[in-house]
């Protein structure tokens, strides 16, 4: 498969790196997966529940491992919720270590969140600092990609419009929130876009909504290979009403993961 929007004039393979949360890497196809089929190599560094600092950290890991370059590479970053804090390297049930990415623990606290995440949110976190962390992460991502002249699109996955309104911050922090807008290449978040259609499945945009978002905001990637991928993905998820009600079955998730593993490159990043 060949990349369409960035042509290379040599034999080097084209590469696409996607960063973000579950709106990028999930149990069904996301916008990143639709874009990814257009590239020779596709790396999905999204992590469900991740915060923006984690995306920024992973970008640095990827740059160190793969030496991002303007000739072959394209990067997308899906900005996630500001009220998140990913904690490094909790012990897993299998005895390994993994990121503790519990989603939004500050404004959407839940008794089901992991103990450490609840503790952090209750004892240490606050709206001002959370906004500053996200600003610093997004500004860092923007600075690195711009300075290295990497073609990229930064867009909002999650709707953060309630920050500064419902979630009060100081006037100085409000300025930092406003600045984040300047780093976004697409103003409408995938969240807002999908809400209009009320097509969420267990709080996530459906495969179809991801595709519609791509058609609207990434039209150069709405190629024949993308259309074919969408058709194929749809054949895996035939019953959208059931999907909306119950989520995918284990078989559907397995089928999707099998398919995905054929074309997503394994990266060697930590966690």
């Amino acid at each position: 498969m060949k990349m369409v929007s960035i042509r290379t004039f040599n034999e080097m393979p084209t590469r696409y790196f996607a960063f973000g949360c579950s709106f990028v890497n999930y149990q069904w196809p996301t916008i990143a997966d639709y874009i990814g089929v257009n590239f020779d190599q596709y790396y999905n560094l999204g992590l469900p529940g991740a915060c923006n600092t984690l995306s920024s950290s992973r970008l640095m890991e990827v740059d160190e491992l793969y030496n991002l370059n303007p000739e072959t590479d394209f990067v997308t970053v899906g900005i996630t919720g500001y009220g998140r804090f990913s904690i490094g390297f909790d012990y897993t049930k299998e005895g390994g270590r993994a990121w503790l990415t519990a989603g939004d623990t500050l404004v959407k606290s839940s008794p089901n969140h992991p103990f450490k995440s609840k503790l952090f949110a209750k004892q240490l976190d606050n709206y001002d600092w959370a906004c500053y962390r996200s600003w610093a992460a997004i500004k860092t991502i923007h600075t690195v990609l711009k300075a290295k002249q990497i073609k990229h699109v930064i867009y909002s996955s999650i709707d953060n419009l309630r920050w500064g309104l419902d979630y009060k911050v100081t006037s100085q922090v409000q300025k930092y929130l406003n600045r984040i807008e300047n780093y976004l290449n697409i103003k409408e978040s995938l969240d807002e876009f999908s809400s209009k259609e009320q097509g969420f499945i267990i709080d996530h945009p459906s495969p179809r909504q991801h595709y519609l978002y791509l058609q609207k905001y990434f039209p150069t990637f709405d190629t024949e290979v993308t259309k074919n991928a969408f058709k194929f993905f749809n054949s895996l998820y035939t019953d959208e009403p059931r999907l909306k009600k119950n989520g995918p079955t284990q078989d559907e998730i397995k089928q999707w993961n099998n398919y995905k593993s054929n074309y997503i490159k394994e990266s060697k990043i930590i966690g």
Partner: protein
Amino acid sequence: MKSRYFAFGCSYVDSRWGTVADLIGANFDDYYNFGNAGCCNTFILNRLIEADNLLKFNSTTDFITVGVTGIGRFSFVDKDEKIWITAGDHLIYNKNNPPNPNYPEKLKLLAFMIDDYSYAVYRSWVAIQTISTVLQAKNIKHIIYPSLDNLLYLTDYDLPKHTIAKVEEILKLCHIKESLDEFVLNNYPNRGIKYEDGNSDSHPTQIQHYDYLKKYFKEFDTEKTLQRYNYLENIFDYKSINTQGLNFYKSFINKHRNKNYKIWVP
């Protein structure tokens, strides 16, 4: 165009007396010091990103130094006090080396319930790698050097291989290998200042900062630097920590550092 110098780091950069940054600063038209006592490396990265956002680094006029601080730190904004808590290294504490009873509860929580060595190393690696990448990509002349000695992370904490590799990478990213900490330990019988009121401060002294500059920042071992060092020695007030702190602020910081910018304070 005015030459500009930006210094980033912890208390080894911004202290109660002159540091290597204050001495280098004598050689520039504009000298900015973004050091913050007790801060972590992520804090240093964020300050650098803020400084770039506000003052637009450029390769023609600018020089930057980054003093890498302790790995076992985590700076955060206290939700009740609304201030940055930059309290130095909390990961030095464990069951065998407990903190004193007055140690803040939130830092105990961090040290014993949330943080760990691997995560701390990863955070510092990300921060220093990002700083190096940004400055290289923007073609800004810069020196990254270790302020604090982080070598214990290679030997004493029984860390997994990939974590040790990240510690080694942090050390490789430093242009100068010997930390200011090690330099003092290797070359002087004592460290710090004892004030007349009996209190002491164990940070490297002004002469130790100056000697470190002479060894590792040779191009800044100039007449201007010597004049600044002499000035800093002349204004030193040995009565107490507080009088020296106030005096240093009034007689040096106010006069010689450019503070014409507004970074975020909670």
